[in-house]
């Protein structure tokens, strides 16, 4: 999959063992930085933060892409590769697509994309579908997650830019990225969009409820993540204490011939428990830490989309207000014209033309305003519809996503306890055996 001739492709060691040892060495890493600038002792040279890719396994062959039963589009990401070019260093990922849709000419596509391309894709999706909830891209570890969500989205997955992203060869893709897109695709950037303090005349109860719900949900999930983090730290210290504890049994066993077997068994059970606990600690980031953070970012996107809708409503209300103002102005002027106030001659003559001028201006202005109001209303209704339907879809996705995260978390706990139970069951069974034999000796 060599790209441009000028870049040197260095095969990155994707073996999990290597990366997990790097993970251990560098506990803190910045998700958002492309270049960590740190050097490692083994073959990776000045690599961009590659630690986050430990979960991306290489797919051996395309048949591994098991198509879901009902899906006509399946996308997988793997094989991160480092590229050294004259001006920059970056990583690309191999995107493999299996598709059975008419819009796609082939059934299978394999392309390489870099992180910036993902950012571009998201930007385009947001521009094209302002009231769809477009999954966020908080960090490099969430690439697969984002792709999955877009693939499963009924509207987003049909987007032409997404198609381009999946299918275009590198050179074509770069070309079209640099092309200026037609203006109508650009969403009207409303100055009000940023004012979160925009007070709406008519509060939309339904969306308000959703906003409140999302706020509380984010709060609860954030709490859960904090608690989990704290517990994980304590667990890690617990592992240290256990590792101080179990060797003492072994040491003691050397001076107690009659208790030696028992002591050694207990010591090794404690050791096994410690190892299982350690596995639990190591799994934290991939099980809860990152997924929770990603989901919280997703909630932020929903909140943002709701705010966008509000800005549309605000714009609409503002335009109505202006129209009404002009209407009342006009009415006042007409009333004045019909009932002229009798004053000294030249004065009243002087007033008349300016009054007519004004009326003329209003006569032009009001229809424009009316059009504006109508278009705002249309936009608002579209936005409402669009958002409402995507919110419904998102609620379902949310349930499934959170359910999965929680189940993953619980499963890791179960694994830990199962390992511990089996370790102690072994010791107990050895004890029972011994007791059985001593009883028979005593007879």
């Amino acid at each position, binding site marked *: 999959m060599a790209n441009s001739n000028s870049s040197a492709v260095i095969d990155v060691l994707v073996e999990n063992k290597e990366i997990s040892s790097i993970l251990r060495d560098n506990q803190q890493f910045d998700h958002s930085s492309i270049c960590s600038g740190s050097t490692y002792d083994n073959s990776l040279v000045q690599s961009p933060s590659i630690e986050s890719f430990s979960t991306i396994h290489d797919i051996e062959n395309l048949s591994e892409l098991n198509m879901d039963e009902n899906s006509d589009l399946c996308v997988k990401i793997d094989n991160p590769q480092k590229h050294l070019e004259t001006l920059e260093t970056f990583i690309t990922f191999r995107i493999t697509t299996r598709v059975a849709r008419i819009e796609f000419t082939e059934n299978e596509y394999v392309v390489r994309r870099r992180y910036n391309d993902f950012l571009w894709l998201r930007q385009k999706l947001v521009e094209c579908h302002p009231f769809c909830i477009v999954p966020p891209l908080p960090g490099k570890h969430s690439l697969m997650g984002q792709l999955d969500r877009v693939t499963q989205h009924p509207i987003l997955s049909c987007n032409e830019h997404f198609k381009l992203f999946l299918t275009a060869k590198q050179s074509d893709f770069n070309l079209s990225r640099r092309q200026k897109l037609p203006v109508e695709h650009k969403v009207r950037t409303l100055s009000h969009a940023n004012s979160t303090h925009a007070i709406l005349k008519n509060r939309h109860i339904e969306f308000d409820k959703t906003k409140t*719900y999302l706020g*509380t*949900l984010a709060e*609860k*999930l954030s*709490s*859960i993540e904090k*608690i989990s983090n*704290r*517990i994980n730290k*304590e*667990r890690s*210290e*617990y592992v240290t*204490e*256990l590792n*101080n*504890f179990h060797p*003492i*049994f072994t*040491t*003691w066993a050397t*001076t*107690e011939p*009659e*208790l030696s077997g*028992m*002591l050694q068994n*207990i010591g090794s*059970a404690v050791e096994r*428990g410690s190892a299982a606990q350690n596995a639990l600690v190591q799994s934290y980031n991939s099980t809860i830490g990152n997924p929770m953070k990603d989901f919280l970012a997703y909630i932020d996107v929903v909140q943002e989309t709701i705010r966008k809708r509000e800005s549309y409503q605000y714009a609409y209300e503002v335009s109505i207000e202006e129209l009404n103002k002009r209407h009342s102005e006009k009415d006042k002027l007409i009333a004045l014209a019909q009932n002229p106030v009798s004053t000294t001659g030249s004065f009243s003559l002087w007033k008349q033309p300016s009054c007519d001028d004004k009326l003329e201006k209003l006569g032009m202005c009001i229809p424009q305003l009316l059009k504006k109001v109508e278009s705002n209303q249309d936009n608002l209704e579209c936005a409402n519809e669009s958002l409402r339907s995507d919110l419904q879809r998102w609620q379902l996705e949310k*349930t499934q996503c*959170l*359910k999965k995260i*929680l*189940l993953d978390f*619980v*499963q890791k*706990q*179960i694994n830990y*306890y*199962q390992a*511990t*139970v089996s370790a*102690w*069951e072994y*010791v*107990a069974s050895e*004890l029972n055996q011994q007791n059985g034999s001593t009883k028979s000796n005593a007879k």
Partner: protein
Amino acid sequence: MESVKEVSVASSSYNAPLVPLTLDTLLNHLEISVSESEKRANGSLNLRDFYTVYLIETKVTDPNCQYKLGNLTTVWRRYTEFEQLRDYLEVTYPYIVLPPLPEKRVMFGWQKISNDTFDPNFIDRRRAGLENFLLRIAAHPVLTWDKHFIEFLQNEEGWRESYKSNGYLQLVENKLKGLSVSVRLKKPDPKFETIRDYGGTLYSNLNNLLKARSRTAEKEYTIHKLHANYGRVFSEWSAIEKEMGDALQKTGHYLDSLASSIDASLEDEELLADQLKEYLFFALSLQSVCKNHEVLQLQLEDAEDVVASKNVERTKVQQGKTGLMSRLFGAVDTEEVREFKVNLLDQQIQEGASTVNDTKGNLSDFSSKALLDIDRFQNQKVHDLKDTLSNYTYLQLKTARKGLQTWLQIRDCLQNIP
């Protein structure tokens, strides 16, 4: 060695001492328990000093008991009185590996185990420890019928007076002085050296084990208690959810139960730690016996030294080479004087020799009694520690199974989310 059939006599939370069935101990006739504790105040109103007393109850179980025993007695004793009893036993039976008292100050404390000796939990564990101490003595083949021990159990004031009047306090102080002198033996007994070294390693291993255990207990406790926070958040979350609400609510409850379940299992574990602590102190008792042996051996060596030097002197006198004066002036003792000196020395040598014999006798007597008791102790130790370690294993297994069950229930709950 004949296999003696042994019977266990249970104490509240401790391992039961093994008693050879052939031996008649106090426990065959008397039920002993330390059943209650009470806080009392000492001194005038201005200077209140509190201490705790423990109630020792005894009941004769054998109606045909030929020994003079109070039928049903209750006696209040404080910890220092137990210490006095033990000091007396130490002085009287230096060759016995004495049962230890429960700790004077809190050792290996952690978050749940306060350092306060007035903490009700500590007092209750001390009460159990004191009962165990008495039962061990009552089951001991040598100690069981000691009069002062029985008096301690049954006669509140009487024992206090006889303790003072018998001058035991003085004896104990003297003995403690003697033990503080470091001993350098010419020919240390290898058997006792080995035992003393073993006592040292037993102490060190148990000490390390207990310390490390209390630290793991603290971590385990903290981790479980933090899960209560989950319980709260999940409950709050369930309130705003429709389809997930039920599952989240249940999960919250399960997590709460996980947090509260740890208390019981750590309390059980603490009792097992107390059993190990008893052997920590037993290791010191063992070393005490070895030390007493050293003291006796030193006495023997000193006595032998005296005889040896007297013999040398006698030879010198015999040959007429004594005194600086004679060497300077060449004066020689008259026959009479020389004979007189020789006879005196002979007498002293004879006395010295008999001292050596006596001391040798003491030493060998001590050694044989001590080795017998050390053997008994080792058997008891293996039996007790096997029990403790088994119970520790079953406790860990039980706790792990409970945890597993809770998480499986949580999983079932969550899987029911549509």
